[in-house]
Structures are given as C-alpha cells and as structure tokens.
C-alpha cells in the first residue's frame, strides 16, 4: 500500500472516450494490496476495458465477496455501484441484483479462495443459470489474506514459501466451467494486459456467464522459485492459444488477419469478437475438443491462455425464465404486485 493517494494530476494529452471521460475517471481509491500484487494490474486492465467500452459509470455494478481479490472493486470505477458481500456469496447477490435490474453491466471480482473453496457451490450454480455477468477470478493459488496457505487451485508439487509441497489435485476453474456449460471462458495473465484487456471487454459484452480466470501472482506468498503461480513460472510456461479483438457495433474490422486464423463471432448487441487462433488446430467452439486439448496441455505443465470457449447461442438466465425485457426495478408496484385477489388466483391454481 501507499500513504499518498495517486495524484489527480494527469498527462495533458490523455485521450477521452465517447463520454468525454479519461482512464483516470474510471479509477478508484488507492490500493491497499501489497506492492507488486497481480490484482492491481487486473484492476488497471478493468479500468482500461470499461473506459474503452464507453461504459457509463452509473450503469456498471461491481460485485465481490471476501479476500484480496474481493477488495479490488474499491480500486476502480469509484462512481459505479458496488456490493461487497459475504465470503463466497457474490454469485447469489449478483443473481439477485441482475434479477432486479437486467440493464446494468455486472462485473464480479473473486479469487481462488472465494470461488473454489468457500464459494464453489455458488460459482457452479451461477454457471448453470448462465447468469449474465463478467466473472473474474484473480487466481494466485494461495490465501493471501491469511498469510499464504495453499488454495484449491494450487498445483500438485507447487512449493510454498515454507513447509511441504502441495499434494492435492487442483480445481481448474476453466475445466469446471467448460464441463458445466459456461458460454464464455477465458484465461489471462495479470502481466499481459495486451491480451487481458480484450478478454475482459468481450466478457463484459457477452450475453451470458463469462468467466475470466486470471493468473495473478501473489507477490508476497507465492512468487518464489518452485511456485507454479509466480511471475517467472507463468511467463515461462504460458501459451496464447486463441487471442481476440473486440470490435464495437457498426465498426469496421480494420486489423489485417492471416487467412484461416481469424474467426468473427457476433455478439447479441451487434458487436463482434474476432478470434485469432495462434494454434490452428484449436477449436474454441467445441466443448469436447477444448476440454481434451486443455487437459492434455495441462498435464504437460503448460498454462493455456486466451478465449478458450465461446457460445453465443445459449439463452441467459432471464430468457430461460421467460422474464420481461424491462428491468423489474423499473416496473411500477401495480405491475409487480398481483394484489390480494391476484395472489389468491395464483395460489388457487396449485390447490
């Protein structure tokens, strides 16, 4: 942490987005995480992504649970809505919020402890519901706030700072999400913003549950030799498999792509994602193929990154439930409330 806040002074030629805001306008309070924490870079990537998407701050809701990761919504978009919930319960609270107002953009920031240990049940069911949100896991393999015990995502053989190497099988959120039918699954690295920012932009614009698992090293408890989630280890073993560019609605696809490698996917709002396959054999639209490829490379110790799976066809929660298009929060009490007579009628159906 730092004693002084980031000075308000800015570069005079800072660019403005369509709303006339700069990246500085999407910042939050100064971080109280350890200096060098990967989570702060993820925060910077989120700032960049929401700035580039011209998201009005008051149309963004930041959701979190408990943990180092879950503190970070305080460090971006200070003009946005936020809910810091009970440990591991962020998916339920987000479900409720989304149920009430489907028009907001939801970003949940969680960690490997919050999502894969205490909150793993919540995480799984949010995927099953295809809740329309960007779900970030800042994944560092340790419980940082409680001084660095292994978390459920620690790899077998990964060494702690002190004590015995981990022997339990890790939960890989990407594999879990694939098996449960999540509709947008990505993995990035906090030290590679060029890849991470588009992944977050795509996740925010995806119409359904979008998982972004980010390897985000814990600089204090898990950045040593023998750790499989350190900066150095991640840089040595990570591979881009499918990179992507986000193209807003009505914009031309300008970048030149090599033939065969580029694959545009249209999102529900008319914007597009252009997938750039680094590995030509990989198919990010086939769950079975993706699963096989991931497990294979995982067993070889590789960290596979990029937009690993996408399915724009499946209905999200509101569609599955047949809800009205307008947010419930905008409907009048008369419309929402059946009244005593109406309620009696409904109950009568079940007698």
């Amino acid at each position, binding site marked *: 942490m730092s004693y002084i806040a980031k000075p308000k002074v800015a570069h*005079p*030629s800072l660019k403005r987005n369509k709303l006339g805001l700069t990246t500085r306008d999407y910042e939050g309070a100064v971080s109280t995480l350890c200096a060098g924490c990967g989570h*702060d870079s993820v*925060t910077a990537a989120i700032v960049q992504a929401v700035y580039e998407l011209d998201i009005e701050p008051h149309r963004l809701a930041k959701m979190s649970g408990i943990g180092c990761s879950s503190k970070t919504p305080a460090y971006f978009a200070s003009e946005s809505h936020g809910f810091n919930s009970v440990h591991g319960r962020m998916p339920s609270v987000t479900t409720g919020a989304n149920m009430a107002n489907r028009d907001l953009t939801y970003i949940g920031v969680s960690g490997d402890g919050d999502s894969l240990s205490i909150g793993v049940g919540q995480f799984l069911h949010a995927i099953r519901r295809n809740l329309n949100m960007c779900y970030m896991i800042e994944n560092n393999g340790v419980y940082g706030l409680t001084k660095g015990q292994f978390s459920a995502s620690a790899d077998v053989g990964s060494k702690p700072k002190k004590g015995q190497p981990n022997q339990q099988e890790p939960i890989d959120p990407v594999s879990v999400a694939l098996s449960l039918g999540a509709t947008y699954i990505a993995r990035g690295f906090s030290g590679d913003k060029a890849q991470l920012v588009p992944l977050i932009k795509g996740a925010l614009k995806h119409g359904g549950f979008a998982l972004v698992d980010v390897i985000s090293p814990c*600089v204090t408890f898990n950045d040593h030799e023998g750790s499989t989630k350190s900066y150095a280890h991640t840089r040595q073993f990570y591979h881009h498999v499918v990179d992507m560019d986000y193209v807003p609605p009505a914009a031309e696809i300008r970048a030149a792509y090599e033939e065969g490698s580029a694959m545009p996917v249209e999102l529900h709002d008319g914007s597009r994602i252009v997938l750039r396959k680094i590995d030509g054999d990989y198919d990010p639209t086939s769950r079975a193929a993706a699963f096989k490829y991931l497990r294979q490379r995982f067993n070889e110790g590789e960290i596979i990154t990029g937009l690993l799976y996408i399915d724009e066809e499946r209905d999200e929660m509101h569609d599955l439930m047949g809800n009205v298009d307008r947010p419930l929060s905008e409907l009048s009490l008369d419309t929402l409330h059946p009244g005593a007579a109406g309620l009696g009628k409904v109950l009568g159906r079940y007698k």
Partner: protein
Amino acid sequence: MLRRFPERMKPTDASNPDYFHKVVDCQWACPAHTDVPEYIRLIAQGRFSDAYMENRQSNVFPGILGRVCDRPCEPACRRGRVEDKPVAICRLKRVAADHRDDISDRLPTAPSQKNGKKLALIGAGSASLTVANDLAPLGYEITIFEALDTTGGLMRTNIPRFRLPPNVLDEEIGYILDMDVDLKLNHPIDSLKTLLDAGEYDAVFVGTGAPRGKNLEIPGRYDSENIHIGIEWLESVAFEHVDAIGENVLIIGVGNTAMDCCRSALRLGAKNVKVMARKPRGYFKASDWELEDAEEENVDIVVNHSPKAFVIEDGKLTGMRFEVMEYRIDDNGRIDRGTVVDEVTLPCDDVILAIGQDNAFPWIERDIGIEFNDWDCPVVDETTMMCSRDGVFFGGDAAFGPKNIIWAVAHGHEAAISIHKYCQGEDLNDRLPRGVNLATQKMGMHEWSYSNDYNPAARRLMPHVDLRERFKNIDIEVELGFTVEQTVAEVERCLNCDIQTVFTAKLCIECDACIDICPTACLTITHNGEEADLRTRLSAPAENLEQDLYVSAELPQTGRVMVKDEDLCVHCSLCAERCPTGAWDMQKSTVLLPYAADEAEAAKDRSGSSAA
C-alpha cells in the same frame, strides 16, 4: 506478436552527470546551475540561512537575483508543462534572502597569508565581483578598478531603486569586498596597454559590461536636449543628476530597459507614458512579468509603430512621427519585415531610446595581441573566458555582448577557474569535470525524506505596494516579498525534480505496478527499438524531444525494456512505493559543480599523492 527492430536504444548511462542534471529543468536552464529544488526544500523547513548559502554558492547574489533575475529557470520549470504556471522560483529566492539570519561567519574569508599573485579586475559589476568572490579566499591579492564612484555596475545604475534597493546591493557586494579586496573607485582604466605594460598584475579580468546604449539616427535626433539614451538616463536618475521629466514621455523599444525607463519616468513626474513597439505582442524582448508590472502602472504599450522622425518646433521637441506597420505571421510564428500602412504623430515632451546596448572598448588598444571580431568585440574562448592574449580574461556583458546578471555570475565562476589555473601554470582546458552524487531518499516502507505528495495549489502572486502609494518616492520598493502563507504554499508546488527515479533492471519482475500507478503515464515496458519509434509506442506518446527517454537494460524475464519519458514525471515516488523488489528507488541527485576552490583542492591532492 513480437516486432523486430534493427536499431535499439542503448541503456541510459545515469552515471553521466548531465543525465540527471537535465531532469532538474530549472537547474539545467540556470547559467550558474543553482540547485533550486534543494534550496526550496530548505525554505520549506524554515532554514532560510541554509537556503541563502546554497544559493550563494552558485549565484553569489541571492538577494539581488531574488528581485531582478531574468529567471531562465522559470520557463524551464516542469510544473509549467504539467499544468499552467511554473514555480515562483525567483520569489522564493528572495524569501531566503529576506529572512536569513546574519550569515557573515559562514562566508569564505581571505587568508592573511597571500599566495603572491596579483589580479586586476576592471569594473565593479557582477562578473568582476564573482571572480573576486572565488579567488580572494585562495590568497590572491585583488584590485578592482571602477570608473564610477560606486559599486555594482549596471545592477546599480540601470535597475531602478524601486525594484532593487541600494541596501540589498551594498550588503551582498560588501560580503565580497570584505575579503581583503582592494576597491579603487573613480578609477577608470583609460589604457589596457599601460596597465599590462606596468607588469604589476599576474592576470587581468575585464568585466566592464556593455556600456553603450544604441542610438536612433533619424531626423531631429540631435536637435533637442529632451531625447535621452535609456541606460544613460537611468544612470543619471540613479545618481540623482536627473529628478524630473516632462508630462508626456515616449519610450522607444520594448525590452526590459524600456520597462525600467517607463516606470522610472512615472516616478519623476510623467503623467502619460507610452512604450512604442515596432512589432506586435509576442515579439517583445521584455520579460512577461516586467511587462505586467509596467501595465499595472498604466503604462500604455503601443504596438506596430516604427519611429520615423522627431518633431521639433522652435527648437523644442513637441512630438514624434511614426510609421504604422502591418505584419504577416506564418504558421510557424515567423514574422515578416512588415509594410507601412499609415503615418502618425504623437505629442511628447521627452523621448527615451531603449533599443539595445553595445559593447565598447575604446580603452583597449588594438595592437596589444587582443584579437577583435567583425563586431569590434574581443574574441573570447567560451570555456576559459580568456582572449587571444594570455592572462587577459573577459566576463559578463563585456565577453559576448548584453546578456544578464546570472550569465555574468556564471562567466565569473569560469573565469576564476581559468585565472587560477593560469596563475598556477596549469592547463586552462584541463578542468575538473562535473560530477553527480546519488543518495536514496527512502526512510521507511512508504516514507521518503521529501514532501512527495503532489500539491495542486496554483502559483502565488507577488503582493505589491498600493498603486497610490508607490509613486510618492522612487525609493519605495514595489514588490513586498511573499508572506509566510504564500511561501508555505509555493514551496509545496516544487516537484523535487532532483529526487530521481533510479531503475535497476535486474530486480524487475515486470508486474506492471509502477506503470499502473504512475499518474502521468511516464512508464512503459516494451520491446526496445530506435528512439523515434520507441517514442510512439509508450503509454503516452513522448512528443517533447527536448526531454530524454530513460531506457533500462533488458529485463530478466522477457528481455523487454523499461522506458521512462522524463517529460512529465511529477516525482511523486509512487513507482518506487508500488515496486515490490526495489527496482525503482528515489534517489537525490546532487550535481557537483567545480569552482576555483575545488581546482585548488585537487591540485593540492595531486601534489600530496605525488610526494607520497
């Protein structure tokens, strides 16, 4: 995608004393390289005497310069690039001078045992006094010859008392004369040949200024007594030979001398003063703040008027004719020669010509081995300050034409080194190099030895004596000096540019923490390339080519480089605070400037080590 570049920037050599010196924009721009951030911090701590001594070391006349310096530091100030206005550096210098305690026991003293070398310094202005200041403590026997009956040269004769009170001059000049310097007033040197032939002095320094005001040869010039040469008129005012002027006064020219002339005229009874400029605003020679001060006193600045003739009626000056000009200015701000569109006559009682100054050396014979150039000025070496005749040195306006006081001081320091080396039989060109010392400012986890938080306060304005009061007497100093509250606010505006961001590539783990926190987007980790290309690929484009890129060695994990654009860094230390490995550190750079005393010390060390 990896891009490949044939050319790469070499890692910055931060041990080169000039690299970090350049980052301290104010100090780099100052001809005497005053350590501005250091003395501002001392003022912030209330250590006014220490701040004064820090100033005196390089600029010798803090009280004088704190009032009337040309301030090359302020347009250079980084604060002026980050937001609007630079730090009021000059005003803070005056704070140090005004609030210092008696510092006489901290001044250098002349030894009673002299070194047997005698020096003649001609002219008692800022250049000669600086030479005396540097050499008297080394045991030189110094004689200053001054044509007038007082010291200070142009500082006293050309700068009006309402800007620079005589007691300020007397005090700071006194410090130097008290070092056993022999001052001969009313002692003009009429012949340099005679002085040199007498062989009484081991070296001679010429610091006689640029004493001749430029004339304006147009019809009527010599037909009235009421047409004055600016610097001569100011001198007569200073010596109280003149104490009145007509009601309507025209000043020709719009430099700083013109500003002093118009404001002096107001104090001698003029009611209606016009400064006549040939060109439009933006092409004036006067400093902005001197223009502002004159306009505050209701001086009318008339643009685009070119003098044509004086109007004399019955032997009396009644007006002046001007051609009204029109100019074309191109996209680069270049102005053409102009075309005449009209002609007007303005009534006046007196005209003061303030259109520049020339050097004049009628007292230097042209057959004594001193080479003169096409402009009839001596040819002087810019490093050694020596002319083509060995043992004769020049400085101040006498060396390279009219500049300003702070340049004269800088010349004086360099000339003092040369005179010393000349007298000791050393090679004048074998001078001690500048050095740099770096010291970490880390005091604790997030604690630094300086005030690192950016303060958004606006520049404080100098309080002035009320407009009705100030014209009562030419002795009333107009500027009152900063109040305590103003000083406290202004010192915090300094960005401490000498507290450098120093990077150690091998410690970097490329976590991006510094890049994410930097408020002014100075930092980037990227693939190396040639400078022009690199400047376009940074967090914010580095378009100020005068400011360097600080490029690291290859980073251990990816082989990329850390690049810092020095242009807009506010030295807030957050990069170093957010760095988990100490790859960034805040270190104070102290530029080590050699003076004559350092040359003497080095020579002593050399002889000591050779004896051992």
